[in-house]
């Protein structure tokens, strides 16, 4: 298809030409106002937290025609919605250019569109209505849930999935490689946490390019369990916090086992992160905070009780836990929207067969 065909297609299929076609220059002015308001809304509200439908509209008729209800009450404060679970919402952009919360009542959004540009978000879909026409919004970024929201949480999800595959599975990250006490990757060194944190911090700094600030936290106590904070530079009310825990065995230089972490440790980390998210929601209610729980899994079956000797492991024992998912009770990722599904990252050993 050549560019002329594509231009014609855009004119037929998209919302900005539609607004002009239906309402002329007034429609064009209004659709830009609606898009800017929708962007402002998503700067404070994460689309994935929306459970209902969101409507933003503005009447295209001049105010002097008297059909527009003057604003009543204060303008909507999008920041106050930041950490709430969102159901149905409706905002009208009034003659002063500010959004006001409206209750639609018996009026349908199709009826509103007779004299207004209407934006509607529902079930991860977006559309604009003008007069009797409606156009879905093309989404240029497949990660984004809205064309008007730069994806932030999903970028980090994608990065963590890559990290598990590319860096942890075969210990290819040169920082992460240092966590092992032995060449066969059976035992961690004692206290491998800071190396794990440095490895993931470096990866995220590289992967999330210049759009995010990534910084490691120094753990001060168990009440502040967060290992890494990630903040998008363009949306300063979004905060992503990452907690890292490891499973497996660690040993000191003499070969004595210093820690043996199994399922209970994984649960402990989930509980800590959930409590920390609760605290953050209380102390920073204007922030949209999402918790990400990374579990480095190096469990091995039939390990020797002491790591002093040069140990080897069969594939059956070394990979025994690779496909064994962890179960959580309570499971915060199943009950709250601000807690992602835990990222279990299995670190394979070098097997002798």
């Amino acid at each position, binding site marked *: *298809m050549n*560019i*002329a065909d*594509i*231009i*014609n*297609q*855009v*004119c037929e299929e*998209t919302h*900005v*030409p539609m607004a*002009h*076609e239906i309402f*002329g*220059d007034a429609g*064009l002015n209004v659709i*830009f106002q609606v*898009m*800017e308001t929708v*962007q402002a809304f998503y700067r404070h509200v994460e689309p994935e937290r929306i459970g209902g439908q969101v409507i933003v509209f503005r009447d295209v008729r001049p105010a002097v025609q008297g059909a527009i209800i003057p604003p009543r009450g204060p303008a909507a404060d999008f920041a106050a919605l930041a950490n709430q679970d969102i159901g149905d919402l409706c905002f009208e952009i009034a003659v002063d250019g500010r959004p006001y919360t409206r209750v639609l009542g018996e009026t349908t959004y199709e009826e509103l569109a007779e004299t207004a540009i209407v934006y509607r978000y529902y079930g991860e879909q977006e559309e604009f209505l003008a007069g009797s026409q409606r156009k879905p919004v*093309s989404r*240029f*970024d497949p990660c984004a849930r809205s*064309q008007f929201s*730069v994806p932030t949480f999903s970028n980090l999800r994608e990065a963590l999935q890559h990290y598990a595959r590319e860096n942890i599975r075969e210990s290819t990250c040169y920082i992460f490689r240092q966590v092992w006490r032995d060449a066969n990757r059976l035992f961690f060194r004692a206290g491998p946490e800071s190396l794990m944190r440095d490895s993931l911090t470096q990866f995220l700094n590289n992967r999330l390019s*210049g759009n995010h600030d990534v910084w490691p936290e120094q753990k001060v106590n168990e009440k502040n369990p967060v290992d890494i904070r990630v903040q998008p*530079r*363009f949306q*300063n009310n979004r905060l992503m916090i990452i907690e890292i825990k490891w499973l497996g065995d660690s040993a000191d230089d003499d070969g004595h086992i210093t820690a043996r972490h199994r399922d209970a440790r994984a649960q402990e980390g989930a509980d800590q992160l959930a409590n920390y998210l609760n605290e953050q929601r209380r102390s920073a209610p204007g922030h949209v905070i999402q918790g990400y729980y990374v579990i480095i899994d190096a469990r091995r079956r039939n390990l020797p009780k002491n790591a002093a000797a040069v140990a080897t492991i069969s594939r059956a024992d070394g990979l025994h836990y690779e496909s064994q998912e962890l179960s959580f009770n309570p499971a915060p990722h199943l009950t709250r929207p601000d807690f992602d599904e835990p990222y279990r990252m299995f670190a394979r050993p070098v097997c002798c067969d």
Partner: protein
Amino acid sequence: MTRLNPDATFDCLFLANRLHIQRASVSAQEIHLFAYLACLLWLYRQRAVSDWGYAFVGTELGAPFSRDIDVALKELLERGYLRKVHDRVSPTEFANQPLRDLTELGMNQDRTECLRAACSSTAAFSVGMVSNALAKEPELSRAKAIPSSRLLLEDAARSQLYVQFEALRTALHQRSNDLRLPAVVWLSALYRLNKSAADET
């Protein structure tokens, strides 16, 4: 001593102010990007490229860069009209009055229309999307294909661009005179072109 280009200086002030209102802060690269988009809209209006007042080169990464914008940004930072925080610039209070005065000048009306329309495209697209779409514009896509910086919008190279603008004018025939409409339609078309090329490879 490097000469300060008055058009580039006005554009820096205007774009930093406008994008700052929309998005809190702006990077130097984004100033170059939106100045270039405004310059292309100037050509869409069938005005001479030489009247824009300064030139752009395409970097090997496919991004537009103007030396005059670069010099103006540094000078505006030096003189306190802009401030820089973490590689991003925003206007200071000292920029308000000169920007108002310059915007009201009759000689700046035509370029202000282009600058405004360029900035308005961020209502429909993120900056990254504008950048990706523009990378498919004939001049920048040629710059990306050749691994060295080269001057953009030279006489011989503009023909393909004019073909696109003619198609755009035909499609929007008898529609609005508002430059925001062709800006958004063209960027959407470039983005689709970019995507279909990526899907084919």
